[in-house]
């Protein structure tokens, strides 16, 4: 057993140092700014006390420092003051009567310059009328979207896959949807954060990059020929069980029926037992060996 005490203590000390440094820097080095968020939205607070309170605690309010107010996002209030319905103001509620495009336009007024949103107009979310507030909650101290739950609300198939026996650690919070996808739009299919699937997968699975002396062409072409990214009822995120997957392209060593594997009568077959083809052909991603066998 390795001694894991020291690394954890080092990390702990590092964290504490950063906390103290950060707080100290804030307290000592920065110039005070007088205008406070509490001054925002005085005209709105008489009716909207709770949203106002939440807004004052929000990141937006604190960063804006009084430069913007409720009207910046919700539009002019002249009509709303006379007719306090959601239709006389830009309401982000589900029953506010505004289209997704109208709602997103309010956010893009400030955020369209962001490099993260450069391809918003090209993405699937805009195309399918998903507004910014469908994912982001604005009147909160932090903006971070609660992944993957928010994504699962619409992507039910992905939620189903991510909960299957073999899955990327998405539900455990170790892989975020945004690690692989730019939900704000890309020029690629499925809004992935790379030019193609393989270059995306290689970001974490650098050991699969090769280049290998003997390559397996489907692996070079597209990881998704054999793997499904979110989860599978088959081991190793495979699109099928190993024996049938390999047979989609290769002649098997025999018929792998119920007579095979350990329990076969009158015969049993090591090609179907346990990890099947992978028992021997474990180097399916390629091999650096100088002899072509793929078996080692």
């Amino acid at each position: 057993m390795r001694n894991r005490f020291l690394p954890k203590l080092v990390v702990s000390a590092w964290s504490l140092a950063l906390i103290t440094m950060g707080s100290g820097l804030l307290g000592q080095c920065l110039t005070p700014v007088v205008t406070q968020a509490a001054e925002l939205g005085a005209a709105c607070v008489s009716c909207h006390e709770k949203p106002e309170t939440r807004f004052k605690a929000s990141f937006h309010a604190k960063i804006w420092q009084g430069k913007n107010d409720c009207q910046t996002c919700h539009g002019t209030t002249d009509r709303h003051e006379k007719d306090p319905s959601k239709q006389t103001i830009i309401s982000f509620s589900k029953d506010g009567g505004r289209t997704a495009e109208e709602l997103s336009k309010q956010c893009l007024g400030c955020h369209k310059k962001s490099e993260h949103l450069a391809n918003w107009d090209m993405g699937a979310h805009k195309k399918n009328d998903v507004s910014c507030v469908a994912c982001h909650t604005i009147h909160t101290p932090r903006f971070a979207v609660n992944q993957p739950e928010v994504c699962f609300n619409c992507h039910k198939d992905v939620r189903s896959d991510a909960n299957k026996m073999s899955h990327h650690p998405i539900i455990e919070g170790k892989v975020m949807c945004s690690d692989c996808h730019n939900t704000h739009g890309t020029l690629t299919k499925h809004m992935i954060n790379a030019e193609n699937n393989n270059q995306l997968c290689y970001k974490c699975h650098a050991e699969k990059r090769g280049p290998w002396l003997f390559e397996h062409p489907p692996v070079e072409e597209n990881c998704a020929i054999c793997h499904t990214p979110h989860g599978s009822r088959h081991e190793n995120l495979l699109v099928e069980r190993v024996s049938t997957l390999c047979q989609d392209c290769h002649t098997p060593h025999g018929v792998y029926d119920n007579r095979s594997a350990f329990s076969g009568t009158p015969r049993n077959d090591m090609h179907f037992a346990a990890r099947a083809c992978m028992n021997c052909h474990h180097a399916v991603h390629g091999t650096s060996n100088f002899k072509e066998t793929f078996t080692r």
Partner: protein
Amino acid sequence: MKKKVYSSVILLSLAAPALVVAADTGDKNVEVHGTIEMGGQASSITGDKGRAQEFRPLDDAVLGNIQLDALKGTYYFQFDAKSSGADDQSFQLKGGEYENFKYKFNYSEMVHNYLFDAITPYTGIGTQHVDPVATPTNPATWTKFDYSVEHKTYGGEVELSMHSPYFVKFGVDKHEQKGLRPFGNSNSLLAEVPEPISNSTNNLHLQAGYRGEALTSSVTGTLSSFNNDHHFMSTLTPDTEDDYATFAPDNDYKKLAGDLALRDLPLSSVLSAAAAYSNLESSYSLSDLNLNASNLSAADWAAVSGTPRFNGEVDYTSYSLALSSNPLTKLDTKIYYNYLDRKNKSTIINGNDGGLLSYNKDTAGIDLGYRLPEKTKLAVGYEYMKMDRSTPAGGTDVPNGSTKDNSEYVQLKNSSLDWVTVKLRYKHVSSESDHGDVDPTILVAIPLNFQNHKSNEWKLGFDLSPLDRLDLGLDYTYKKTNYDNTVQSRTGDTRQNIYLDATWHVISKATLSGSVGYETVKTENNGIDDPQDYTQKTDDHFWSYGLVANVSGLLDDKLTLNLSWQYQKSDGEIDFGNDTTGNNLQNITQSDNYTKKTLQAKATYAVDPKLGVTLGYIYEKLEYSDIAYQNYSNYFLFSSGDQGYFSGLNANPNYEANIGYLMVKYGF
């Protein structure tokens, strides 16, 4: 374990006063708030403890979470520590000033457990040479070990924009993996052997760009280096034959990318463009892999001796262009073109020329969306894709050749009733490859991605709110694909998914939600195993349902209860037919069958506005069965005479876990 607990206690004990001091700066312009949470978990797991803890350590542990937010004017600072003290702890710190600068640093750990207490007939596990035990046919004498890989990631990024439209980002990160993964050994027998994992990937990113009202553009450079501590492993098999395995080579990856978005063009158009070039290299010789006459058989050494150094090189070049417009008020359009070129320029050596795949891929398409009356939107689209593949071996055999895909879709969405949105989508794909027709006398399957096929896909979706407090959602997908002229391999498949969600806000402080899902995949294959001809049909089903109840505001608004139940059932079958030799092929009734049940209960009590206590319980049970693992034995002599030496991986992944936790949270 004790040391882990001690380190957690030390961290949390030190963090608490540090945070309180940080919160009490005495400067009224500085606002500091956050939470610190301390507690512990205890568990009882029977069965496969590795599977139960695949990505989540469940050992008894002291745990802590910290969240700190500090603001002064436009400056902000955030710190998060999650699961401190556990094997999956993470720390993230970020801060900066809006439109001036940003920074972030992170450290995280993750475990990937495959199997605890696996056994192997080898000694020397974790090194680059393993030998069999004295009596390898007796599993009682085998070596015990854990299949598990520990991941660690360190990183940081700084962004400077100095209140200008220009910005620069600089980031570095390092990812380390250490542990043991399943591998194989198959010289004259079948023996599972653990592969020693010890590697790291170092990444560096530099991005410079411009963010303006009408133009956003940036250039990004990336350097990534993968270093493996183990490139080879030599073994003496249980029947004392020399064997040899090679692992992932070191590699260096370089990438230069640029992108541009032009807005405010005529017709409310936006033009986006991107280009990227990347280069991936590896290089190794026989001596780097310790391949020599002393550790290879005479025949193997004769086959490879004198081989020059291998230089692996793969380049990717890509261009993308897209233009979105609103030529009419109600009309959205997008036209796009993507080009991707992959060149495998690796050394041609020892007959590897048939696998060094190069390809280029052109994709062009158009999407049109038109808003009809009654809140109805019609969307149609067409895409053409052409992919040309080649290897140095050339010829017309796979994987050389080309594929052309034509796909069209039409989608109709209606929200004319305030309480319901309906979406219907149809997509057709036609794919033709040069290798769609294969000589039936050649018993070589055509890879699935080369086979001519046509698919039709229907999707239907409903979002309903029939009552103020009730939301319903339904998604249904039907997809059927027919593969033309298949002699061997897939002839067709049919996939159906249906998901139903319901959320009922019973009262303002009580919510009940539920979900039901059903998926089925049916495939049909022609199998040819000379002299037997047969058909093979797979029939896979997956059911799931979940129920969640959340109640808050109990006990004078101090108690919140959460209860959830999730059930999954996977059921697969494989049927055979048309055996021409009279063998009575027997259908498989257990193909990755499993059930998984998860119960979670949590109660949170707010002692006062700053102090809360959470008590939770999780129960989970997995039961798995599959034909490939029935009558499993660590040592097995097959009827063919082949010997098998198995570690126990996947043999019995069933487990039952009970986990309890108690956390105290203090807010400041």
